[in-house]
């Protein structure tokens, strides 16, 4: 039995409260003010609708200006889109990676500090070690992607004399399987397997990260697995025996509009 649970998004008064209490906090009382007020007050307010201006499926909503590239060329976007859709395909349970915006998500990530390994150790010498010591990472992720996508395209041309996005689903899967097994080499030191694993991780991230990052469009990734996104509190459902389904909330619901 699924029960509907409506925990409202934090309303303006909460945000103002947090702002003031945040400013006022000093010394003795830290978490107590905020959490106490949440536990004691906000829960009791009437639910207010989530102010997200989308329609089911997202079609009729305003244009999504987020869906353009910061890093990829058109062709790189297409190869990525074709590959991630095979990793997480559309089916009767819901949208696949393409519809969820995963390729745009990956593009935006590559344009972020993560794409250039911003917070990782980048001092040489670069030496190839044992598997227990991690990947050989002499080049950054944007470069790994450039080369990885070329490797996919070249393997498709060689095997099927056709570009990867134009292959049949079975052919695409065959190429991705070769990549996964390490039978396609990306470049000396970077196996097809590492690139495939990167693609797979990014696909799951793009399907399930907060929609603010460009994937998980309209929270459809979350909806497919009944994940409620981020709610303020679950304290009142913890002891329930039955599954409690909730309308998901995203970080946007926590921002003052």
């Amino acid at each position, binding site marked *: 039995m699924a029960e509907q649970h409506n925990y409202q998004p934090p309303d303006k008064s909460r945000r103002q409260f947090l702002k003031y209490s945040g400013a006022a906090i000093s010394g003795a009382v*830290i978490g107590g003010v905020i959490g106490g007020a949440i536990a004691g007050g906000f829960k009791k307010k009437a639910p207010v609708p989530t102010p997200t201006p989308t329609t089911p499926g997202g079609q009729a909503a305003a244009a999504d200006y987020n869906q353009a590239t910061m890093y990829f060329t058109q062709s790189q976007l297409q190869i990525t889109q074709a590959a991630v859709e095979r990793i997480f395909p559309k089916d009767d349970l819901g949208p696949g990676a393409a519809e969820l915006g995963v390729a745009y998500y990956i593009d935006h990530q590559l344009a972020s500090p993560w794409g250039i390994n911003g917070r990782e150790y980048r001092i040489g010498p670069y030496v190839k070690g044992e598997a227990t010591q991690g990947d050989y990472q002499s080049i950054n992720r944007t470069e790994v992607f450039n080369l990885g996508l070329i490797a996919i395209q070249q393997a498709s041309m060689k095997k099927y004399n056709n570009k990867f996005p134009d292959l049949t689903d079975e052919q695409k899967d065959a190429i991705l399987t070769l990549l996964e097994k390490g039978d396609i080499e990306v470049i000396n030191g970077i196996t097809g397997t590492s690139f495939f694993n990167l693609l797979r991780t990014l696909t799951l991230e793009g399907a399930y990260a907060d929609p603010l990052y460009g994937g998980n469009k309209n929270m459809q990734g979350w909806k497919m697995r009944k994940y409620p996104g981020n709610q303020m509190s679950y304290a009142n459902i913890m002891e329930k025996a039955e599954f409690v389904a909730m309308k998901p909330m995203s970080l946007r619901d926590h921002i003052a509009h």
Partner: protein
Amino acid sequence: MATKMPKVPVVIVGMGWLGGIIAAELSKQGVKVVGLERGKPRATEDYYMVHDELRYAQRYDLMQDLSKETITFRNTSKMTALPMRSYGSFLIGEGLGGAGIHWNGQTYRFLPYDFEIYSKTVERYGKKKIPDGMMIQDWGITYDELEPYFYKFEEVAGISGEQEQTPLVGKRSKPFPTKPMMKTPILKMFEDATKKLGYHPYMMPSANLSEQYTNSDGITRAACQYCGYCERFGCEYGAKADPVVTVLPVANKTGNFELRTYSNVVEVQHDGKKATGVVYVNTVTGERFEQPADVVILASYVFNNVRLLLTSKLGKPYDPKTGKGVVGKNYCYQTNGGSATGFFDDKEFNLYAGAGSLGMEIPDFNGDNFDHTDLNFLHGAGIRISQTGQRPIATNPVPKGTPTWGAEFKKQSLKYANSTLTVSPQGSSLPWQHHYLDLDPTFKDAYGLPLMRITFDFEDQDREMIKYVASKSEEIMKEMNPTSIGVSNKLGPYNIVPYQSTHNTGGAIMGADPSTSVVNSYLQMWDAENVFVVGASAFPHNSGYNPTGTVGALAYRAVDGIAKYLKNGGMVV
């Protein structure tokens, strides 16, 4: 050239959990303290956008910036160590509060057996039971001596737990300050199954407050909301005990504490007998400062505690060939493996909800709570179930044989998204002569200092232990009646890539004998009486429990030692 600052009585290197505790207690006693933290300041207000799995759990927003500093690793001394270029096996804290901000809050006490592991093992099984090369040794303190300090940490943090406890764990002088966390249907299933099997389940002691609580410092914090974003995240309610919401406000209020953030310590200065102060670099401007002090406290987590001793040439470096020397000795970790995952085809649980330390444990196969006579390993593991909130990027379990991508993967991962439970052992890690920390000969940090090098692997001891406890996890999971089970009872070589736990221990261990330990039972250095090295670096081995309850206790004991030293000087034991 470094700018020389006015001398202070006490300088603390690192303002994480332990730096915070020491700052609060000493400043309350009227001692002037300067705290140096390499990272940025933090406050609860920073976490209003914290329920973001990508930013915090996948991209490690709160952890140490590895572009400046990391560790190098190899399994054996025959290999060349390589840097951990991106995060894997453990996640090092940085910024005010350290890893104390993004921990889970599972707050156990080590067992009485742990503190006297050598004597008790020999007493029960004879010397021959300890294999060649295994370096277990007594801690120089007993559980009973440490008991009041355990309670002190629990009282400040407001640890939640059961009033009645099984005699299989250490005796408590006082009950937990707050009631246990909620017993959810998942925990009840584990409780029923383990009780039926004759084991002794109890609620995991938790630093996520079960109820609103005011501690003896007058700090009031709110109850945990079971938000499901705990480990790797900061708590936006202040419900999770962390240094910023517990001990640091107390230190600030005294007027005796000065915090300097963006201050990376690069050297402990000394005259061969005693420390004279520390040198630090302002990470924003690059300026160097000398901070003279009467007492230097290292609280910069295991790796930098040991690294600063070695780069500053303080104490006798450990030599793995002879087993002589002490700094770097007995590096241990946590042996995780042997979990059993149950797939429940027609049940759905509220797995999205949870708290960092919501769970239950059985201590029946931990420490020496079971007879090892016919077993070829020592110690054991706590076997647990936890409900910490399963977030969707990281948690996609599928039954064995399912492909890892494509249509079938999608179908199965969605089907089981809310229908899998895991029972997992958290295993002890015992020391070996050939496991140690030293300075890497090649790789350097952003300040030109050598990185810490880890030489560590899993041994037959660990493999046998995991095989044994895996059979227990499986037995428990079977009793919980899932549709199918997946068990992993094999332990490969230690691999730096997958996350395991941030429970690194050893390298500056405590003991009663200066020839086999770096610090005494007050964490005072044998070779420099005004240096206290505080942290899990002091553990001679790691137990089948998370470390912080025990390091918290040791930090409160260190406070007593520092106070004694400030008064009388000399070795305090």
